[in-house]
């Protein structure tokens, strides 16, 4: 399995797979099948996929460790950047198609509507992560600092789920599902952290020296 995962060609199908949601949206668009309220539909679809890609990105490390598939790390940057890509589409839809660049109104939304405030924050938090996703930036920041910075994704994901929860009128099944999955992914990390601390206490403190490919 690891040998398949380390194949240099595998990134191409994964990349294409990540574009399927956008393709499906385009397909429905060509059919004029974006429901009676296309702008709302596009907003919801791109928002859904942002959250899904955030969760998929956050699932890479737990899966890699529990399944013993270290090579999964090769896809994490791409998945994270796709989360950012769909977040950009979501934000563009809102700014352009929904508000039509009425920045005064956008500002009012961000200031007054808490679900937009928190959604906007979730988006802003992703920007430094996207910028510093390159090998050059990892080098420049150093593995430890880079890793610390990239923990912002936890905050962004939590803000994203809260954004969804606060938006929904009464049927909270979907936002709660996302919250549940996110909770599991974060709890796994918390568990590892506590467990790892206990295991290492007493042993000589060997600082993690994450390589550029293995920062997790």
């Amino acid at each position, binding site marked *: 399995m690891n040998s398949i995962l380390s194949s240099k060609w595998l990134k191409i199908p994964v990349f294409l797979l990540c574009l399927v949601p956008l393709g499906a949206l385009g397909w429905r668009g060509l*059919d004029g099948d974006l429901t*009676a309220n296309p702008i709302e539909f596009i907003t919801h679809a791109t928002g859904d996929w942002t959250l899904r890609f955030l969760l998929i990105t956050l699932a890479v490390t737990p899966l890699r460790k529990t399944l013993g598939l270290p090579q999964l790390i090769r896809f994490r940057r791409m998945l994270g950047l796709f989360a950012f890509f769909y977040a950009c589409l979501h934000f563009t839809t809102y700014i352009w198609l929904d508000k039509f660049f009425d920045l005064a109104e956008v500002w009012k*939304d961000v200031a*007054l*509507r808490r679900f937009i405030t928190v959604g906007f924050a979730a988006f802003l938090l992703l920007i430094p992560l996207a910028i510093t996703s390159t090998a050059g930036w990892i080098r420049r920041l150093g593995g430890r600092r880079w890793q610390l910075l990239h923990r912002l994704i936890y905050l962004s994901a939590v803000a994203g789920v809260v954004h969804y929860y606060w938006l929904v009128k*009464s049927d*909270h099944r979907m936002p709660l599902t996302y919250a549940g999955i996110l909770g599991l992914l974060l709890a796994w990390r918390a568990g590892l952290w506590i467990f790892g601390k206990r295991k290492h206490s007493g042993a000589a403190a060997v600082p993690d020296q994450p390589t550029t490919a293995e920062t997790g």
Partner: protein
Amino acid sequence: MLVLRKQELTNADVTPKRVYLNRRKFLARLALAGGALAVGRKLWNLARPASVLATTKLTGVVKGPFSTDEKQTPYNDVTHYNNFYEFGTGKEDPAVNARNFRTSPWTVSIEGEVKKPRKLEIQEILKLAPLEERIYRHRCVEAWSIVVPWIGYSFSALARLVEPTSAARYVAFETYYDPAQMPQAGYAGIPFPYVEGLRLDEAMHPLTLLCVGMYGETLPNQDGAPVRMVVPWKYGFKSIKSLVRIRFVKDQPPTTWNLASPREYGFYSNVNPNVDHPRWSQAKERRLGEFFKRPTLIFNGYTDQVAGLYSGMDLRKYY
């Protein structure tokens, strides 16, 4: 003076045959892929089941008062973009989940502070007064709107039949509820049966419609078959669907969305661009089928008819 030297093309500039052929192959493949995609889309669309609506034509409908001459919303939008939480909370859910909803036989009970309580069969309701077509604006609290040619008559015609007593000050409405037919309802997050209410003078206002059809036909299930209310100057959730009970009462009756979230949904819920929903602005709305949002009108543009009902009332307090 500018001298333009002719650039001689040499053998070195010739595109290698291999690359040239590759380009052709690439273009051919691209065309093939495009063609396959187009055919696939056609086949997919053919394979999809077309939705069937069990509606029948209504005859003897006359043109009623208060109609707008604005462009009517396409029938397909009004039947596939619905809020009817008993049949699911997605906009496209009711069209699917209400398909087999049984609306016959159907009885509406009219009771409470009335001299002559009645139980009316839907057939009787259809014949109670001449059916009128009224083209109303309909503004949802979620900031979208539609223009619908409803069919029905003023609710007051029904009220007069049962003769409300002087004790009646409000009217309470109730939607049919059957968990067996509405398995999605349990997930909606609001209590059922769905209830709504109007002040008696609001209910008796000639604009207030007891509605049995739209677009020349009986109501599709997802739009509130077989009989519903239409109160065009209030947010859409006040226009209760699939009515089974009408009670004339002394006190202001509970209403579903107000029970679910009192801060967000008031008893009156008149369309008002100046009073925002706590989570979004009500200043503009998206008319389904239109790209740009349009400004929302106070009382949904029915100020001349209904503003008198609220004279002296603080509409911010009584939202």
